[in-house]
């Protein structure tokens, strides 16, 4: 089987999606001729034409609002917002319209569309280019919110998102685009939206994360293993619907939980997970539920990025703390 990066796996998913259904179209800033700033749409405009892979003006609200109209009108748009920091001008369209039309019209109109958003830090990018606003979308009823951390999941989840009858915010961890390669099947396959993945079984503590932070989380589990601590690692993959069952089953078993994300801590999605655990696993808990997260600050510029992002050390230290508790 072909071994692909996440970037290529996503490109492949879009290719397969465009191929299969003539209603699928791609739109966004620079997605056409130049193949997107991360080259995720590379070659697709040439292959499918500029009416199916459409460069748009620099106007995020317009992109999402027009994509919404396209979706209601029978198309299956996959809209790219260049960076999560540039999804904010489209926020009103996403929250007031995209997420609500099915309810507003009681199923009469629907917006089956995908909003692809490169997100997260760790590449020394300029201001606004390292945002992690997934909790904001997760707090918006009517959206599904998905974050792959592997090439296989990226393709399978993106195809599931394209097939989904409801709008999906598809968060792509920039740092993972080219960080790892793995085998990715050809053609159409789906990874079910709403299922976490227990990436590694363990007995002593559950490490819960998603997106690029899976890199550090995996390493932290390795580090803990070296010291004889058996960490279970869960890749959440889907924030909405959130697989509460997978998380509570694991924490009920291990009695300890550390949640890792790079978004700011306060009211981040880690809080939701901790709250879920506090509600459902209290009697199994042997230690406080800890969060290792970005700080309640602006994401720093290149020189100070390392101060912000959760490190392997911080994750290991938190896990140890739960073990000592």
């Amino acid at each position, binding site marked *: 089987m072909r071994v692909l990066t996440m970037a290529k796996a996503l490109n492949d998913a879009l290719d397969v999606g465009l191929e299969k259904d003539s209603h699928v179209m791609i739109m966004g800033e620079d997605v056409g001729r130049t193949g997107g700033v991360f080259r995720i749409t590379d070659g697709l405009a040439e292959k499918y034409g500029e009416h199916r892979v459409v460069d748009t003006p620099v106007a995020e609200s317009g992109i999402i609002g*027009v994509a919404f109209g396209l979706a*209601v009108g029978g198309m299956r748009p996959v809209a790219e917002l260049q960076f999560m920091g540039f999804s904010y001008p489209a926020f009103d369209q996403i929250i007031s319209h995209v997420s609500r039309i099915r309810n507003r019209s009681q199923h009469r109109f629907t917006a089956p569309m995908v909003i692809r958003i490169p997100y997260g830090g760790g590449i020394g990018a300029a201001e606004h280019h390292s945002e992690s606003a997934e909790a904001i979308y997760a707090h918006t009823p009517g959206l599904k919110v998905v974050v792959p951390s592997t090439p296989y999941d990226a393709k399978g989840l993106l195809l599931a998102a394209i097939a989904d009858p409801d709008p999906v915010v598809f968060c792509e961890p920039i740092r993972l685009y080219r960080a790892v390669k793995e085998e990715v099947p050809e053609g159409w396959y789906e990874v079910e939206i709403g299922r976490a993945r227990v990436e590694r079984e363990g007995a002593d503590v559950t490490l819960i994360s998603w997106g690029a932070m899976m890199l550090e989380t995996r390493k932290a589990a390795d580090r803990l293993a070296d010291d004889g601590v058996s960490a279970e690692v869960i890749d959440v993959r889907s924030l909405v619907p959130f697989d509460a069952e997978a998380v509570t089953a694991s924490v009920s078993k291990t009695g300890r939980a550390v949640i890792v994300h790079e978004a700011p801590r306060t009211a981040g999605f880690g809080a939701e997970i901790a709250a879920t655990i506090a509600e459902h696993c209290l009697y199994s808990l042997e230690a406080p539920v800890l969060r290792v997260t970005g700080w309640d600050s602006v994401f720093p510029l290149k020189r100070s990025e390392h101060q912000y992002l959760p490190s392997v050390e911080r994750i290991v230290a938190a896990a140890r703390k739960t073990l000592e508790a």
Partner: protein
Amino acid sequence: MRQRLTPSGGLVGEAPFDIQLTRRLYRAMVFARTYDRKGMALQKQGRLATYAPFEGQEAAQIGAAAALEPNDWVVATYRDAALMWAQGYPWELLFAGRTGDERGGSPPEHVPVMPPSITVGGHMVHAVGLAWAEKLQGTDRIALTSFGDGATSEGDFHEAMNFAAVYEVGCIFLCQNNGWAISLPRERQTKSATIAEKAIAYGMPGIQVDGNDLFAVYEAVKEAADRARSGGGPTLIEAVTYRRGPHTTSDDPNRYRDPAEVEEWARRDPIERVRIYLSEHGAWDDEWQAAIEAEAQAEIDRAIELAESMPPLGPGEILDAMFETLPPHLEAQRRELVEGLR
């Protein structure tokens, strides 16, 4: 400003359609006004939530719809009940929305009208997307979006106009400039002399018409629709009209505007001028007037009855349209909801 029918019913140039259609549209305007006045009255009785009246804007709405084909998209606002109805949206659903029932947003399958937009400005881009979807799917359906003068201040107006022009989609932008955005008069919303000239910024034709003139509105929208349908792209139409009532039933216009202005505009009534015109052509009399008013009354009463006899959403049903299939957390919340209402 284009005009075909003066406030005193005089024709300027030629009538855009025959007397039969004029009578039909006159009748539609009478229906619309009946609905609107009933809406105000019902709200005062506490039977509707906030109501936004459109009295004085009937020609703009009925005239515009008359220029569309039955399956053209309409994407309009809280003040566009007449337009939406004229394109097929049932009165009872318009009422149902106002009673505070989600099912008011769900027109029958064959009606190409989106539920009314409550946010100002955000819906115009949707019409652009719909028009584009039709173009991509090779139909000849177009889209008309209606909005107020105030809405042109929103960034989304700009983005909608720009996208429509860039992709040359068949979208008509109908601005009902009714002089006010709640308490802000047109002159203080924007410095451009007209709304129509904003079209220049997008390389799009812009037309200003007397919005209280059924013929002029029809003609302008027809021209735009023909252009849109034949691939000529979008048009901005400014229909100059007036909001004779309050912004909504929660508003007190006496705080900010001179009643003399309202009287002035009452004299430019869009229905009365068609009545005079019809009358002068021997196509109107008291008897017919009484007959259509009675019909209107009956139809509107029936609509209210239908809306009010709808049982409210049952326990838990408020969650049922969040997704095509309820995910587990919503299933759980639904159980909790039903439990909590016991």
